[in-house]
């Protein structure tokens, strides 16, 4: 079966004293391998919470989450960490690189925690860096890089473990429009050529257009779930800017 993500009636409820706040109020959706999905919504709509649940950073209060057929909604913290390490990759708005370590060390971070670093891995890292246009920057530190370069390092880190799912939380939020286009083509390319499933959270519609499916949330529920308008576009764009 092709569904790598299945959310079955998922709730996330926070208790603030006596008041219960439902960040996710009954979400059910599925995603297939190789999809490129954008999640949109106003603040408070639950898109960050949905991202956290999909990214196994948090567990639902009610409902089930199946990742590649495995129910992860009742996993322990350690088991979730294991999943994050092996199957997921994150790209954040503020890059979130380790400032006191080099580019190479940043990229290999997930490998350190999966306890396998071999010469092959180093080769792979260099290969990924070449693909993302980061050649020669191995020993640089994040503060020596431009915003676009830093985000590409973050993307490299996110894919180094060959993840099933890549989660990008406002990845272009801190970048200018030219660099944003750059980064989005990189993501599109990864999705198109390597078949990595991508879930993108954004509040900008033109960024959301890079995806092929747009899910809109409101008050913790799915409001809209439609193919994006420009769903035929990005492939050619990707080739051009790289």
């Amino acid at each position, binding site marked *: 079966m092709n569904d790598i993500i299945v959310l079955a009636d998922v709730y996330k409820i926070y208790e603030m004293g006596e008041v219960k706040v439902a960040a996710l109020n009954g979400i059910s959706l599925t995603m297939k391998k190789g999809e490129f999905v954008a999640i949109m919504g106003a603040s408070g709509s639950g898109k960050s919470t949905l991202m*956290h649940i999909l*990214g196994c*950073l*948090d567990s639902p209060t009610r409902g089930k989450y199946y990742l590649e057929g495995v129910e992860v909604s009742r996993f322990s*913290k*350690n088991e979730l*960490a*294991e999943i*994050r*390490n*092996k199957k997921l990759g*994150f790209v*954040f708005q503020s890059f*979130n*690189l*380790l400032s006191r370590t080099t580019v190479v060390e940043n990229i290999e*971070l*997930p490998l350190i*925690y*999966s306890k396998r670093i071999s010469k092959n891995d180093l080769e792979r890292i260099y290969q990924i860096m070449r693909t993302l246009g980061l050649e020669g920057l191995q020993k640089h530190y994040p503060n020596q890089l431009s915003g676009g370069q830093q985000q590409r390092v973050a993307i490299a*880190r996110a894919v180094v473990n060959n993840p099933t799912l890549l989660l990008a939380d406002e990845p272009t939020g801190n970048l200018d429009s030219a660099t944003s286009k750059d980064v989005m083509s990189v993501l599109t390319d990864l999705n198109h050529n390597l078949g990595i499933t991508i879930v993108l959270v954004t509040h900008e519609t033109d960024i959301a257009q890079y995806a092929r499916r747009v899910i809109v949330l409101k008050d913790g529920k799915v409001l809209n779930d439609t193919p994006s308008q420009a769903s035929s576009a990005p492939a050619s764009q990707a080739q051009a800017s790289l």
Partner: protein
Amino acid sequence: MRSSLTILGIVIGVGAVIVMVSIGQGAKAFVEKQLESLGTNVLIIIPVSITHAASRGTTGTITLTAEDAVAIVKECSAVNYVSPGVRTTTQVVYGNMNWTTGVSGAGQDYQIIRNWPLEAGRFITQQDVNIMAKVCVLGQTVVTNLFGTLDPVDKWVRVHNVPFRVIGVLSAKGQSPTGQDQDDMVLMPYTTVQRKIMGVTYIGYVLASTTTAETRFEAIDQITSLLRQRHRLKPGEENDFTVISQVEFASTVLETSRTMAILLGSIALVSLFVGGIGIMNIMLVSTTERTREIGIRMAVGAKGKDILFQFLIESTVLSSLGGIIGIMFGIFTSKLVSYYGGWPSLLSPLSIAVAFLFSNMVGIFFGYYPARKASRLNPIEALRYE
């Protein structure tokens, strides 16, 4: 900068441990050598009252005489041998070689009391003492320096331009516990040293040996009452002499070094505690500042124990660094203390290993709380941290 102030506590603590252990070991070794060198049943009677001299300074008149020594061995049942003694430092000449050394006067029983066999010739006899014979027995160092490999027995040396015949050579004894060369001396009949060399009638000390190690207390009592009687001391008047027992002296040394050890141990404890608290502080600040970093690591798959381990290692490295510096500091200080303070010190690899282990344990113990706090962070909140 912050770190260096913190590990100062560890440095001082570990240093104090090293000094404490090395001085303790040194004192024990010193005492053992002392007892071995002089024996457990030897008493020394000196013509000053230690307490008296300390508080009022010596009065000048020495009241201890050779006759006192004779009386002691005759009338104190617990004493079996005595040797009156007097000592000076002077030059001894042989041919065109000369050597400045200690010239000691001794009685015929000196050899027995000191358990010191001869290598050649004979020892001083009562006859020699009676006639103030100009004879001498040489220690190994004197022989080496004046005679080289020549046999000195029956040769003549000059002291104060007076010729003395060498009648014997002492076997080698080595260094005394206080570091002096025991083989660097010349023995003569005490009467000879008194009259012919120093021109005095007093006695510098009396060596006495007791019948057994156990009877030394009895001997001390007997000698004290005898001398008080002979020196016509009224009841209540202080002794004008002191009877020193090697064993008691040794245990005093041990007592004092134990006090030192307790003092140093307390310093060590307090310093290590302070250092540990410092480490905990540094790690708390560090983990807080790196909250975002911890979040990132967790997001890519670090488990709680990975984070715990990471920061525990950091705190242990910090404290180990302090430990290494502290060990060097401690070694340096104990050498300084024993050089200037006269305290013997003995460095052992065991004490260094223990001190290093301690510094590691401080790092682990005081670093645990901050590391655990870090490991229990919620990754979502940590990533949001500013």
